[in-house]
């Protein structure tokens, strides 16, 4: 083990005295976590809505209330003319505009059909779909109530004449609070770990190359693997530190519930953490300049982690080509494990395959890095 200790100590000292690196390692992950967890709010509530009520009747007001009382819609303005609808939608001031023509109550009281119109801003397709669903549901509930009351009045009640024949009960598993943070954070942890440690470790070796101090290592009796391990350990420690930091923030600040066992989680993360650092080391053996190291590191780690790990964009909806592509990156496996432990509280028996894949990955990466590192210039 000779050689590992002095290199390790030196590396730790250098890192400690480099405020730049420390800052990146500590602050940026937290910043990313906060930004994304807060901002990537996929819940759709408080949708700004405009209403053009040409009927001004009790029934029409009840209809509007049906929407606003759910809390999902926020009444922004009551309009007086149809042209206004277009304008507000164009400007983006409202996302939904409801038009109730005159004669609404009359049609209904005679037992007939009343027609209303809803305009939805489709530019944000995800929101639009959800809004569509809400509007349809609210409308149908309203109609059903009307029909049931009338049927009761007509003596047609009894028997599922007008009551829904089939009642669908929906039950939510795993994220009862339906907070998007609960879903995003576990995956985000994987992304954050892919963002910084590889960058730091890649720069570590390349900086020595550029500075020339690596030549001293070349001529010393230190073996290549000892050098790699000596460089690896400090950054693994840092990466673990980041993991803990983000985990603590997730649990206690964002109150993301951890359904599974925290020690199990830490154990499962170990190969992932090591693999992120190992990727960086591998990159640094491939390139010569710091700039190239950074570019390569980002291309290989951050981008794929963000897009192809499944943390936000579900993999099942991607074309099969990209689904296959995602198997190349450790972030994918980790996201599965992470969300499994956090949301579903499942253990090794469920994700043992992913765990093995990660372990294998790590082993291969570290070996590659050690093999590629030759004590030669050029």
């Amino acid at each position, binding site marked *: 083990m000779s050689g590992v200790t002095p290199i390790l100590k030196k590396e730790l000292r250098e890192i400690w005295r480099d405020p730049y690196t420390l800052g990146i390692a500590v602050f940026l992950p937290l910043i990313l976590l906060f930004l994304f967890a807060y*901002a*990537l709010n996929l819940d759709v509530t408080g949708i700004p809505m405009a209403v053009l009520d040409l009927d001004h009747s009790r029934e029409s007001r009840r209809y509007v209330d049906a929407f606003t009382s759910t809390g999902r819609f926020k009444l922004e303005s009551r309009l007086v003319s149809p042209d206004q609808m277009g304008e507000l939608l164009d400007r983006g001031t409202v996302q939904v505009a409801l038009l109730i023509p005159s004669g609404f109550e009359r049609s*209904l009281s005679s037992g007939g059909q009343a027609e209303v119109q809803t305009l939805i801003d489709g*530019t944000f397709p995800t929101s639009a779909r959800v809004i569509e669903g809400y509007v349809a549901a609210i409308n149908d509930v309203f109609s059903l109530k009307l029909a049931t009351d009338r049927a009761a009045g007509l003596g047609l009640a009894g028997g599922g004449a007008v009551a829904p024949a*089939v009642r669908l009960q929906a039950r939510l598993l795993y994220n009862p609070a339906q907070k998007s943070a609960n*879903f995003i954070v576990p995956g985000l942890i994987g992304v954050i770990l892919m963002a910084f440690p590889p960058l730091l470790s890649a720069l570590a070796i390349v900086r020595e190359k550029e500075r020339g101090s690596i030549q001293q290592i070349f001529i010393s009796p230190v073996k290549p693997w000892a050098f790699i391990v000596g460089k690896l350990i400090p950054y693994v420690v840092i990466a673990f530190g980041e993991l803990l930091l983000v985990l603590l923030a997730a649990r206690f600040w964002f109150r993301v519930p951890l359904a599974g066992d925290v020690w199990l989680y830490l154990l499962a993360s170990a190969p992932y953490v090591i693999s992120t650092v190992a990727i960086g080391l591998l990159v640094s053996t491939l390139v010569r300049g710091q700039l190239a190291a950074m570019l390569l590191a980002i291309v290989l780690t951050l981008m794929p982690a963000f897009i192809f790990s499944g943390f936000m964009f*579900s993999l099942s*909806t991607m074309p099969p080509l990209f689904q296959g592509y995602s198997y190349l990156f450790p972030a994918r496996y980790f996201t599965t494990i992470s969300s499994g432990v956090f949301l579903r509280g499942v253990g090794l028996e469920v994700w043992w395959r992913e765990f093995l894949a990660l372990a294998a990955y790590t082993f291969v990466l570290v070996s590659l890095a050690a093999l590629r590192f030759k004590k030669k210039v050029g």
Partner: protein
Amino acid sequence: MKRRVTGLMRKEFIQFFRDRALVLLILYTFLEIAICGWSLTLEARDLPLGVFDSDRSAESRALVSAFARLDSYKLLEQLDSPAKIGSKMDEGTIQLALVIPAEFSRDLQAGKPADVQLIVDGSNSSIAGQAMAVAGGLMRDYNAQLTTTRLNRRGLNVRGLLPEVRNELRVWYMPQMKYVHFSMLTMLAIAVLTLGVLVPAAGVVREKEAGTFEQLMVTPIRGIELIAAKILPFMLLELVGLTIGIAMSLWLFDVPLRGSLGLFYGISLLMFLGSSGIGVLMGTIAKNMQQTLLLAFFILFPVAFLSGTMVPISNMPVFLQWLTLLSPLRYYVEAGLGIFLKGVGLEVLWPQALALAVLGLVLMTISTIRLRRSLS
């Protein structure tokens, strides 16, 4: 003076095209846009569904096939025990489970409400919500049909008997709600921001690293000329890049263009100004290329994804919404979506244009001052 500026610009062009790393990065960014456009979506589609049907009657099978026909759902398998539901959900093999009890058809025929359960993986609330909404819609249609059939059997016509509100839904701007259109436009905007910042920043830092800054300052070149020369060539390149991106969107992905292309280019120019301002500013702060890249990625990255490109700004917490007011990308995205999808013009988008212009001027001024100061 014109001579000096053209000379400077010529040099910048030559240096840019010879910088292989940068050119590769740009090409890669375009590739990323294409990939994202192709593969990313936040919609719920083909969600794997498991069914546990204890009834196995004609009615239950009819219900199951109604679900299977939905776009959002994909019937994966019929399960043979309730316990399997839990484990498969845990594994993630299925995200939805439809449980039909044995009394289903019996209750239906007896005219009693028949209960059916849908178990939903609630991890991703957006997808869960969409899945449930679709299921709800399906059930309502299904029930309405059943009701009509029953009433008809009794010789009653539903219409004219029971009141009903019919809500005609019209989705504006993107009736098919294709996510691709949305994501292409936002990715384009992100690319414009990223490149618009990175390339000028690289240009400034390259000069600093080579030590030629001093040399330039000894010559009769003036500060403004220097900045202009750093920015103009890149604006030109960005215009070219933008055009390629627009072409890709229009022809490869069928993104509609309902507004004025000229207006879009005009606003894009303002955006270039703003992002170049950020780029030059970064160039004066960073000491070398590595720092530049680090700064760029870790500032741009969050900014890019939080300016209303993945999630509507109205969804974000209030203080973040205020923060986005400072982001040129936010205005650019609003303008882009407005012009392409909504077909609106300057009369609606003037606040965005104004904001971009103001931001651009402020950033440029700050960076010019910093540049001049950093030379002494």
